[in-house]
């Protein structure tokens, strides 16, 4: 049960897209699933880094809830004529509490992405530490835009996601997803082959 809970903890954080945005930009992000809710708010004071607070609630992990504060950092951005690539890192620390224990919770992330107007790829490794245990999850994504959208028109992405988490019986999890991006609102939904679904909403200001 604990590992299932940890899996959901990781699953809810998999859509960590846009950890750093433009100067003075705010991101409000929420992920909803039947047994899990997660929210984060980040502020980007400088286009190189952002400050983030987030909270996660997991029904299946003894009603686990954590509150963390941390920094997301843009190590490098590659800009070419019609595409861009990014390398991000993140370190968060805070407090967790469930029905049986409480203490320090920490998250660390390394993420790379590359995007053109037609294709999108991302890969990330995320480490989670709580209750004196650390688990790492690997995620890879490929997205295809069925049409090329312009300014202030609806952008649509069809995304295939594969996750590998060592605590999840060594089985990678495949999840097809669809993402919509209109003006400053992004929403994304998908369901894996086991039937676990999620909805992510992200708003930028």
């Amino acid at each position, binding site marked *: 049960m604990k590992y299932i809970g940890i899996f959901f903890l990781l699953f809810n954080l998999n859509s960590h897209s846009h950890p750093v*945005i433009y*100067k*003075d930009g705010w991101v409000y992000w929420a992920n909803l699933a039947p047994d899990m809710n997660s929210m984060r708010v980040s502020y980007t004071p400088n*286009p190189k880094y952002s400050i983030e607070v987030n909270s996660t609630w997991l029904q299946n992990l003894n009603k686990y809830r954590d509150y963390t504060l941390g920094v997301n950092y843009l190590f490098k951005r590659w*800009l*070419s*004529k*019609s595409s861009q690539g990014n390398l991000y890192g993140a370190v968060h620390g805070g407090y967790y509490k469930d029905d049986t224990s409480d203490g320090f919770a920490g998250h660390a992330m390394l993420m790379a992405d590359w995007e053109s107007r037609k294709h999108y790829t991302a890969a990330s490794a995320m480490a989670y530490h709580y209750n004196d245990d650390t688990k790492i999850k690997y995620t890879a994504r490929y997205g295809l835009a069925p049409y090329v*959208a312009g300014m202030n028109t609806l952008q649509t992405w069809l995304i295939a996601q594969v996750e590998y988490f060592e605590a999840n019986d060594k089985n990678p999890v495949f999840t097809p997803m669809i993402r919509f991006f209109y003006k400053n609102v992004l929403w994304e939904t998908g369901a894996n082959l086991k039937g676990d679904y999620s909805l992510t909403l992200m708003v930028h200001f």
Partner: protein
Amino acid sequence: MKKLMLTLLCLLASISVAEEIRVHVPGMVCQMCVQGMQKQFKSAVENVEKDIAVDLDTKMVTVKTKKKLTDEDIKKRVQNAGYNAEKIIRVAKIEKLPIKALEVPKREIIIKK
């Protein structure tokens, strides 16, 4: 003479020169880039939706402003959006001509054979 001076003053007061700035920004691919540019140039325009255009095909940001923006200022705003300004083109535009004052009365010309 007074009338002439007053007319000239009115003419000058009614002329409004705006500048259209076109900035080439490679690497812009998504709506996030649009949002970033709008956020950074917001203080330089009257209407964000009308005065700032981001063309993701040509990677061109077009800003219509009445403020004097230096090249350094423009580059800084683009950097704050997370990108680099590669080329800056300026086009001066006279927005409001003193039409009434300069209007030439219409005359019908009849050519008699």
